[in-house]
């Protein structure tokens, strides 16, 4: 069962159960009556199509809006906010669905896991955690260590010949926080940020005019073996370090 909640200036006015042919308008023969000059006599209606609930504008003078877009026909999804005149109607797909499902006792409550009832749960969780760690350890052995990337300086004047990308975020720029420091007054504080993720290394342009393989770097880019990043007079080549073998790899 779905419902529409009528609101005006943040105040809750009334709930309406959505059924086929529910009409919205200013005149008293509508299902949802909004007595306001900005609302047309018969402004809009709701029809059911299969399992979809569709809102139709009935050629109203001031139009019907859903989530700030004007619509003539719109299949409603949970949480949609309909604007008619100055009234809001919020669509709730599953209002009071299935009365026999017990209401969640903690709905809206912030509850911490430490009452007696939760002690047992906690033990179960602890088991799960131990098991997860064991599995993670096994995987770590098969995958050797996580692969690490490195930036090699191929042109320009830098502090080092290569930079290991071990940190969560490695910055390139003039900033004192930067892993790869750029020297000079007109260099950007942060030119590129390289974020480490499970997929690899994601380079995000932040300032100046960094380029990648001689093309301007404008969007986020997942670094590939051999990519050349040119930034502030430095050319840096990305490589994967050969995975270090652990003794347990066999």
């Amino acid at each position, binding site marked *: 069962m779905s419902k529409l909640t009528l609101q005006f200036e943040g105040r809750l006015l009334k709930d309406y159960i959505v059924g086929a042919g529910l009409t919205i308008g200013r005149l008293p023969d509508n299902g949802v009556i909004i007595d306001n000059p900005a609302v047309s006599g018969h402004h809009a209606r709701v029809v059911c199509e299969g399992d979809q609930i569709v809102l139709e504008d009935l050629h109203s003078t001031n139009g019907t809006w859903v989530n700030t877009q004007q619509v003539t026909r719109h299949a409603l999804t949970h949480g949609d906010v309909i604007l008619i005149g100055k009234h809001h109607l919020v669509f709730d797909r599953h209002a009071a669905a299935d009365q026999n499902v017990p209401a969640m006792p*903690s709905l809206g409550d912030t*509850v911490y896991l430490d009452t007696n009832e*939760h002690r047992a749960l906690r033990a179960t969780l602890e088991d799960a955690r131990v098991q997860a760690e064991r599995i993670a350890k096994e995987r770590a052995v098969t995958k050797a260590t996580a692969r690490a990337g490195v930036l090699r300086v191929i042109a320009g004047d830098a502090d080092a010949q290569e930079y290991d990308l071990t940190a969560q975020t490695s910055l390139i720029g003039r900033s004192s926080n930067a892993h790869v420091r750029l020297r000079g007054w007109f260099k950007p504080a942060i030119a590129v940020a390289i974020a480490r993720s499970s997929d690899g290394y994601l380079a995000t*342009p932040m300032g100046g005019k960094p380029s990648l393989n001689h093309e301007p770097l404008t969007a986020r880019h997942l670094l590939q073996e051999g990519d050349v990043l040119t930034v502030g007079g430095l050319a840096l080549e990305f490589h994967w370090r050969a995975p270090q073998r652990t003794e347990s790899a066999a």
Partner: protein
Amino acid sequence: MHLRVGAGSDRGRVRTMNEDAYMLRARDGLFLVCDGMGGAPAGEVASQMAVDAIDRQLHTNGSAESESAAERAEYLPQTRKLAAAVRWSNAFIYDQAQKDPRQSGMGTTVVGAWIHEHVASVAHVGDSRAYLCRGDRLEALTRDHSLGEVVRRAAARAGQEIDVPRARHDVLVRVLGREPDVDVDVSEVPMQPGDYLLLCSDGLTRMVPESVMASAIREQREPQRICDYLITAANGNGGADNITVVVVEVADRWWRRLMERRRRPAGRGEDVEAYAAV
């Protein structure tokens, strides 16, 4: 770096009090949302205490002595400082709760973001969340410390089934102030002009689906309007809990902003030039 900031907090439709707390230090690029718990006055005390303690700790020049060596190598200094401040606030609330029987059992969630040189450091404990909206995509930056999330992760990782009743999925496994020490999850996100960062309490995320959050950002554009819109939507869907939303937009260069001003609705959000003075 130019930020535009909006924020709002609402009691909701069911609660008699607002136990959420938030803080904006836009000039420092620091933003916090806390959701207190523990009944009576203690919940709102805990959330406000956390906000104040973290703010205070970040403004003192204390070193982060509690960090591990691994953390030091992996994260930027500001991320470590933020994590240390959150851990410190945990100890502070815990001590207070031990001292004052009226406040025993109080706790709070926290999600905080500190934007420094275009990198946002995000730290969180509990089920208050951070999202990044870039282009059309809304990306969750945090994973709730709730039973439901533990169950989902265990299932995804190893096909493990943990039998937890559905009604218990919202129970938190980590909060500030309930134990002497706490693990803080941190991450770092490079921010580009046009990106939006959204921090919120569970009063929003339980009432409003992520698709609506994404479309609200896309269509409202202006941070304060986004906040107002989302709070109205959450209340419209029941407003079962306190709702707090903070939205930060990393604004473009001044000439782009000037052009944008014509094209998008005006709002009451605060415009600041942020420099990390902390």
